[in-house]
């Protein structure tokens, strides 16, 4: 059990690190095909990372430790989250620590580190990007927490592996109104947290519309490689969380090698499919105005709240208030 458990954790982290740039490459490729372009190929993000890593490290004068620590922190938090959440197996040695609140806090730590780095660089764009990122993050965190709470009420715990294995054994939980509302709410929250259209445009370099790009404008060389890898890993982890919670079929609940192998393949397929669907949908969407973003996120917060109330009252477990 223990060998398989540790293997599962290592496999999760390795797959996320190696697969995140490929996922980004796939999404760009899907987008390129739909727009009638040839596209740069699946492994272009890896080539970018290699090119950046070979360059000379350089930091702007006047920046402090926050600027230097942020890229490493971003990657580290994403890697820890990848180890914690049950992407491949629910029987891992770290399953007792895989609490929802820990996971959301770790993701928030990465966001805050990058926002501080943006402020530290002292440029107008960095500060603007940080302020926008914090606005979005402050609205996204409660939505993510509430959406998963809707699923944790029937499971009776906020432990993610317990929620996932409960959902595998009792699929009707996901088909309930609470499950559907929570899916919609978490999907919007994931889009906002990962900085995709309609909240942020990951491909833009127009200063007035960007959020994430504005914060990392001052990075170059290996630091930039880490920042890019970190945000790609965050996207992968968030999509993985979404699939684990709402399409948990195939995740290993027993500690056998075959279950683990099947789960690895299925995880890669599910995240790739979700990423491709997202990329295809993005072709048809426009980025909303920054002032409309709180509206979108308030809507998803409301969906999450309705999911929690529906889960609490309609299931019949709820007593008086």
């Amino acid at each position, binding site marked *: 059990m223990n060998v398989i458990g540790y293997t599962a954790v290592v496999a999760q982290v390795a797959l996320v690190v190696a697969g995140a740039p490929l996922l980004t490459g796939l999404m760009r490729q899907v987008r390129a095909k739909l727009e009638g372009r040839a596209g740069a190929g699946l492994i272009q993000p890896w080539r970018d990372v290699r090119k950046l890593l070979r360059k000379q490290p350089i930091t702007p004068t006047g920046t402090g430790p926050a600027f230097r620590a942020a890229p490493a922190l971003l990657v580290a938090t994403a890697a820890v989250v990848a180890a914690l959440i049950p992407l491949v197996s629910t029987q891992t040695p770290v399953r007792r620590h895989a609490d929802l609140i820990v996971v959301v806090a770790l993701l928030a730590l990465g966001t805050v580190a990058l926002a501080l780095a943006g402020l530290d660089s002292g440029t107008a764009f960095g500060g603007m990007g940080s302020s926008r990122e914090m606005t979005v993050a402050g609205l996204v965190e409660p939505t993510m927490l509430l959406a998963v709470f809707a699923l944790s009420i029937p499971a009776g715990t906020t432990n993610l592996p317990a929620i996932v294995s409960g959902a595998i054994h009792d699929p*009707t939980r996901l*088909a*309930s*109104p*609470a499950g*559907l*509302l929570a899916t919609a709410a978490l999907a919007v929250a994931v889009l906002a947290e990962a900085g995709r259209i309609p909240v942020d445009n990951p491909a833009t370099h127009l200063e007035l519309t960007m959020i994430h790009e504005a914060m990392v404008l001052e990075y170059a060389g290996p630091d930039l490689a880490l920042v890019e890898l970190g945000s790609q890993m965050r996207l992968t982890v968030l999509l993985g969380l979404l699939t684990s919670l709402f399409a948990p079929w195939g995740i290993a609940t027993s500690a056998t090698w075959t279950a683990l192998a099947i789960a690895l393949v299925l995880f890669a397929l599910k995240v790739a499919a979700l990423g491709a669907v997202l990329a295809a949908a993005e072709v048809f969407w426009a980025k909303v105005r920054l002032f409309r973003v*709180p*509206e979108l996120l*308030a*809507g998803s*917060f*409301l*969906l999450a*709240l*309705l999911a929690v*109330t*529906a889960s609490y*009252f*309609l299931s*019949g477990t709820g007593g*008086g*208030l």
Partner: protein
Amino acid sequence: MSEATFTQLLDLACGGFLLAAVIVLWRRELTAIIQVFALQGLALAAIPLLLGLHEHRADLVAVAAGIAALRAGLLPYLMRRALIASAPAEDRGRRHREGSDERRETQPVVNVAASLLTAAMLTLLAYAVAQPLVALDPTPATRALPVGLAVVLIGFFVLATRRRALAQVVGFLLLDNGITATAFLAASGVPLIVELGVSFDVLLAVLVLQILTTRMRTAFGTTDLDDLRELAD
């Protein structure tokens, strides 16, 4: 139909019913609002249909068919006609001044983010208020009673905070949908004759409001109800 499937489907219909009310608050385009209202009519019709199949009552199934025809078919059709009449074709191509576009609810009295949060509070209020009622007889249907009350409250809110005449009509109809849903969930529906009376009442109200909207448009050039204050001056 087994008890578990019935509960699941009823919960699903009620969830869709509440969700449609929320989306009405969320969207700005009046065409989208009308479309969502039609979908809500379908969710509403599903409630008596499920109850009728579960309790083996043919009259409830007939009522469900009538509700679907009226609220998902006729009323949205009438509103769509009113919308086309109030925003003639030659206006569409022109660039509108902010707040003067007839096809969008551009400036509600309470902004959209705040009204979504208010809807959340109203839903919680409905759940809190309905608790004693649910405790009287906790069946799957009565347990979903707060959904009907929540839609009534959200309908009131739409009625009070929207400026466009058509958005207010939708608010009024949301209110009525909520009352109907509450009646079905609490008492498996009212007598058929009352149901018919209410339905005709709603239909007439929409017809009158449609004519009123068109007259407003010809008299003032807009359906913004705030402009009606000028009559008193």
